[in-house]
């Protein structure tokens, strides 16, 4: 328990799982391994046919802006004609909430089984530890029908692994073939790219918010110093000092995450910087990131970080004011604070230039949480599993979406005054762990929706628009490097160890260059070459 948060920082897994950290470029999602680049460009992605009959209150946009809904559509539409399953299906997935009661004593799970037509037997891993579970299961050779494959937890050698053990689904999903599964056809081409490796489609992608980490602060705490928003790094520093006294602290002790925020203010790139000659410079190699590390060390020396590095979750302390600001998975995380204190709507920091003049960046996330490949099997079974994925990927506003996320009316949820589904007491017990496990392995395109607080949706939508002004995407997203897939996670972990040493004063800034040298010779330079060789022409130049 105590180590959870720490693992998240070190391992680079993602809190809440809904967005990928920006420095996790090391996540081959496939596409070009072993000369597969050409094959991948020849591949016809599944035809995109958005879900009809639903009008959001705030429209989404190509930029990544998520559509917002103030209320749940009153007459949920059925998007699936018949229950998808005839035989039980087993699956490996992960939950980011407290694990749910087991199937036998979980009416929510049982009602889902009824709706699906057969039992959905989930093996639910917890965080951290999923890659270990995945790898050991893989080595045991008795695979479940479905295995969620995260893009950012450092599962190595994805290409050969898929070829060896999993089912090529190209002929069932490519082009118009996907139209047989309308909910899968409603997933965007950008999402599908995640599931393409070696020019083949290996599963249905799992879209998530395209936004990345943000800093959030309790407005009641920050009002003493004129609010959370700042225009220079010095101003932020002064505010932090002022907010730290007695047993109150300005910042949560998640150093790597905080450093990510500072990096944005200092103009550090999202993963890789694309220079004007189309060469690549990694985050760690930029002076911007180095400056951010120095800034973090200055804040640490000023003792504004909460002094217990093992703090598992800062959320309760932010709510009660003991910690002023923390880093969350993305702009929609305001609901985590609402869940603890319904009267609290936290502020989201909009990145600013460190000296008030420089251009800040906002790092967009990965956009999906990977895909779920199938164990090798026969055509009948493949069609059955695809129908299951189709059901579980039903978009917001459908009957299937309600069943998957809220259960059965009168049992797990009730409709409130505005006809929005709200979990009952039984629901809050049975659903979160299960829903988290289902959402991480299957998902429709994301929306902003806050059942009990429609106003929050409006505010989050506005925040997203502001963040998009500074948005930067990881230029290597959607491409693949063998070296990155194999040693990237290890190199990142080693470099981060040094950074944390520097920030906490255990090592001096001299250690930075030494660690960078090791990162480069250990595989960093090779990754650069591999990524540069497949850099898409559409990626814009982000540096000089």
């Amino acid at each position, binding site marked *: 328990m105590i180590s959870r948060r720490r693992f998240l920082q070190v391992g680079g897994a993602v809190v809440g799982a809904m967005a990928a950290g920006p420095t996790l470029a090391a996540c081959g999602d496939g596409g070009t391994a072993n000369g597969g680049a050409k094959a991948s460009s020849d591949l016809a992605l599944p035809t995109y046919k958005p879900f009809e009959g639903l009008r959001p209150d705030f429209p989404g946009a190509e930029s990544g802006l998520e559509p917002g809904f103030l209320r749940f559509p009153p007459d949920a539409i059925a998007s699936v004609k018949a229950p998808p399953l005839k035989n039980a299906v087993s699956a490996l997935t992960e939950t980011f909430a407290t694990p749910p009661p087991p199937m036998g004593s979980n009416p929510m799970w049982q009602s889902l089984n009824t709706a699906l037509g057969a039992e959905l037997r989930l093996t639910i891993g917890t965080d951290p530890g999923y890659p270990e579970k995945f790898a050991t299961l893989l080595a045991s050779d008795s695979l479940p029908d479905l295995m969620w494959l995260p893009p950012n937890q450092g599962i190595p*050698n994805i290409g050969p692994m898929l070829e060896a053990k999993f089912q090529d689904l190209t002929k069932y999903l490519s082009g118009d073939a996907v139209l047989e599964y309308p909910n899968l056809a409603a997933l965007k081409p950008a999402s599908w790219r995640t599931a393409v490796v070696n020019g083949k489609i290996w599963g249905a992608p799992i879209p998530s918010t395209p936004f990345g980490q943000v800093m959030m602060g309790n407005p009641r705490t920050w009002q003493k110093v004129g609010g959370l928003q700042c225009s220079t790094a010095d101003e932020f520093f002064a505010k932090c000092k002022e907010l730290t006294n007695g047993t109150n602290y300005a910042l949560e002790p998640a150093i790597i995450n905080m450093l990510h925020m500072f990096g944005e203010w200092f103009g550090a790139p999202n993963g890789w910087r694309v220079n004007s000659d189309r060469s690549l410079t990694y985050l760690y190699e930029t002076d911007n990131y180095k400056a951010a590390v120095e800034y973090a060390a200055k804040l640490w020396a000023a003792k504004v970080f*909460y002094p217990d590095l093992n703090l598992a979750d800062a959320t309760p302390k932010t709510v009660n004011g003991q910690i002023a600001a923390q880093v969350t998975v993305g702009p929609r995380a305001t609901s985590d604070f609402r869940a603890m204190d319904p009267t609290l709507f936290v502020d989201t920091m909009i990145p600013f230039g460190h000296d008030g003049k420089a251009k800040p960046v906002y790092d967009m996330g990965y956009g999906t949480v990977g895909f779920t490949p199938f164990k090798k099997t026969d055509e009948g079974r493949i069609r059955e599993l695809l129908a299951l994925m189709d059901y579980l990927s039903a978009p917001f506003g459908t009957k299937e979406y309600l069943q998957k996320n809220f259960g059965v009316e009168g049992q797990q949820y009730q409709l409130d005054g505005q006809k929005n589904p709200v979990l009952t007491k039984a629901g809050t017990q049975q659903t979160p762990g299960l829903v988290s496990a289902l959402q991480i392995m299957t998902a429709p395109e994301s929306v902003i929706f806050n059942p009990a607080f429609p106003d929050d949706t409006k505010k989050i939508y506005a925040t997203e628009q502001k963040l998009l002004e500074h948005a930067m995407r990881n230029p290597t997203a959607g491409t693949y490097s063998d070296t990155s897939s194999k040693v990237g*996670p290890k190199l990142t972990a080693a470099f981060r160890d040094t950074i944390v040493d520097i920030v906490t004063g255990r090592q001096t800034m001299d250690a930075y260059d030494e660690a960078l040298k090791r990162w480069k010779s250990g595989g960093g330079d090779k990754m650069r070459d591999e990524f540069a060789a497949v850099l898409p022409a559409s990626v814009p130049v982000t540096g000089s």
Partner: protein
Amino acid sequence: MLKRTSSTTRVKSGLPLAAKWRRDWQMVLLMVPGVVFLLVFFYLPVLGNVVAFQDFQPFLGIMHSEWNGLQNFVNLYDNPDFWDALRNTLLLAAVQLLLFFPVPIGLALIVDSLVSNRVRRWFQTIAYLPHFLSWVLVVTLFQQSLGGAGFVNNLLRHAGLDPIPFMTNPDTFPLLVVAQLVWKDAGWAMIIFLAALTTVDVSLYEAAAADGAGRWRRLWHITLPALRTVIVLLLILRIGDILSVGFEQFILQRDSVGPGAAEVLDTFTYYAGVVGGDWSSGAAAGLAKGVVGALLLWGANSLAHRLGEPGIFQKRGQS
């Protein structure tokens, strides 16, 4: 030597097999669960160490992964992190041996000298209890009392003093680790010494007391010699196991003091092998550790023989 061994074997196996079986079958039966346990959970997994000589990929399995000879060991040799981990492990082991090992003996002597049975039982119970707490709880307890936001430092802050970084100072980390270990396990480790103490003939004390030996002389000339065999035995076991300084205790505190102070061989194996996906390097480090451990065990046992102690295993015909 070979000759002697074979001759003693013949003398010892005087009984025919059937007769031996009739005499010992209950003993053998009692042993079966233990042997099966060792076989399944220790000896069979040992075979998995072959991945140390492979470029192991879990989806290919042991059968289909490529062999790469000693490459993993060469990589380890070139990896400064491995040497850091080894250095930390040895340092922590030495500190544990010096500061932890004597504590249970002292505790046992104290408990043994308590006259009131009631007080003695209370003391024992309290001393045993922490052993049953997991490391997560122990570290949390230390964190809550000595951590940066803990009880002691909050008191210091209220008194207007600077907090003391008990939990985050890498230089004093070995002491912190031993303090935790003593708190958790010294009471439990005392049991075996207490058991050994009960075998001391009370009449020896009476005779010594009658001859005018004081408390300390009795301790020195009767109690400690009686404990000597057990102490040496446990010392050898400890030395054989010395590279296993602990895992959870370190992984839980690794970020507080940094890997420079808290990375030990076991956490290195975990981070490089399981987390980093480089299973073969992890296995190579584990194997290297096992070999060193076995050598140490053999060395310590030989030394014990030279000093005239039985040690933990003997050549046939001895004892």
